[in-house]
């Protein structure tokens, strides 16, 4: 590939790729997020995510430009809550089962050891209470700030801080124990 290749057609924020890019890039992570909230129900998660993107289509872009991801996660989460509400489950995390989708298949890392350590960490995360898992993922997987997580989850910022601290403290201790 030549140097000039990335120099395709410079476009602007208002290019039609806005929503398309959002779908391309957020669909998979959003699906992962929704699947976890829905305790591993991938079909229902796909419905919820589709619904979320259809709603994105209906949004005035200038209202959500700059925080598309936060918007998507917020709407997606509310859709999940709707699903639960319909099924008569009162709270998002009522069942509390620690669903695990992945830890078995870590991406190849730079070494076996690293992959093992990552798998161990994922395993431990899978045993956290579900509300802690959610904020941990929003923070360390999706890169949201405390404030953004607070808006997505409708928790207070200090509540988010408490959950993350509790989870990190526990993980730190458990990883140390494994290391011994």
């Amino acid at each position, binding site marked *: 590939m030549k140097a000039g290749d990335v120099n395709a057609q410079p476009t602007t924020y208002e290019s039609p*790729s806005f*929503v398309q890019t959002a779908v*391309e890039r957020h669909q998979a992570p959003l699906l992962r997020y929704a699947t976890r909230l829905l305790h591993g129900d991938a079909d229902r998660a796909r419905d919820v995510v589709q619904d979320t993107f259809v709603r994105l289509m209906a949004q005035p872009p200038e209202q959500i430009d*700059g*925080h598309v*991801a936060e918007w998507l996660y917020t709407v997606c989460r509310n859709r999940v809550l709707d699903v639960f509400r319909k099924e008569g489950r009162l709270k998002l995390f009522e069942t509390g089962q620690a669903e695990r989708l992945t830890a078995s298949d870590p991406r190849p890392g730079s070494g076996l*050891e690293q992959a093992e350590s990552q798998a161990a960490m994922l395993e431990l995360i899978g045993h956290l209470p579900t509300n802690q898992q959610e904020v941990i993922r929003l923070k*360390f997987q999706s890169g949201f*700030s405390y404030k953004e997580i607070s808006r997505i989850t409708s928790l207070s910022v200090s509540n988010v801080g408490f959950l993350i601290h509790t989870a990190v403290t526990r993980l730190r201790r458990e990883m140390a124990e494994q290391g011994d």
Partner: protein
Amino acid sequence: MSTFEKISPDDPRLTTYALGEMEPAERAEFEQLLQQDETARAIVAEITGTAHHLGVALASEPEPQVSAPSFGQAQAAIVPGKNFRGLDGGLDGGPLTRGNARGGEYAPQSKWRRFPQMYFAISGLAAACFAIGFVLWQPNDQPQRQRQYTEVDLTKFGPVFVEGGSEMKENELAATESSSALVANAEDSRHVREDAFVPVKDEPISTFSIQVNPAAYAKVRRSISGGHLPERQTVRIEEMVNYFPYAYTAPTEKDKPFAAHLEVASAPWAPEHRLVRIGLKGREGPAGGTAMIIAKDVNVRVEFNPREVHSYRLLGYENRMPRQEDLINGRIEAGEIEAGHTVTALYEVVLVGTATPVEEPVLAALKYQQPTGPGLINHPELLTLKVRYQEPVADVNRTLEFALSDTGHSFEMASADFKFAASVVAFGMMLQDSPHKGTATFATVATWAKAGLIDDVAGYRSEFVGLIGQAERLGRN
């Protein structure tokens, strides 16, 4: 004996601080507490380490495969839907539009949800609709963007295509953009330019944190993927650089907990400057054991040789520059280091006798200074890296020293890891619109990154190259 109150290990502020989530005022206050509380400082360091580990582990978690073809169509259908905002003042489109035009509250499920097959039909129709719309839309793109407003009236089971739409001028666009940026990103208002060149005669010693949370890269990636360039102040070069794995070998000598991988070559964005890469790699632990502490009270100092180096700047670490005296005394951020820990820091260096950085006028006389400048033939020593630490069990201070000589390598001669790390730095500077970005453009940054596409087992690096292309298309040059 303590005359102050210890910070409880259960205090969530420890994590808030370690993750850089603390507001500036509270942060200053909390740092005062930390200075008196060694235990709390150690906990902060451990939290930072765990946070790094968490970020890396969660990044390795596979995303679900997205294959549903209906979604591919939906994407095409969504393209013109960028403008699905209803006509100005006309929110009486489909139920979908009405339900969502009010931010915040999200409407209950509309009819199509109960009949999923409708979705496919609509996708198809909307896709066709887009094809027409796109043809109409293209020629009007310049100079004023003419928008097509498209609505799908779901109650009528088909799309209604509305031509024309209103026009929006560049400055109006800019205005709406910046207002939403305000909403989106009130989170980081404490940005200060701290990336200027520092003369060695003023500050011969520099230091950097060995604990870097790689979360900022995920944020940058998410932002670009979401169709907009990240806010400048959220771009953290050191976090981006440290997101990627590098092929640093661990120390081989038993008594050394760290190996240093120092390299110097031309800075690709400013070939008259040298770029120094410092890679530090901790001793590996036994397989499976991940949290083994290999050293504690670790801090790192870089001492520049004033005979060779005129000035330098640490790339990244803005906003979080610890006070030099604190670090030198090991009072802040001196933490425990786990087995296998890796950190990378880069310095852009101006050699004695070469052109001085932009902020100082270049004197013609420098031409005659060249011969007395860095004699590249002699491989002069540019700097010495000093890693001070204590063995985990014994409270004895030890120091490892690593000197770096300049062999005069051009950028092309540098290692793949070096080239890649340089490209990440340059990308960060582009996104920050840094005055130091020199000749870097998204295109050249991509070239440098591709030169570093070696041992990319996890695909992180090629993903990065893709990200550069996306950023270029979003355009802020």
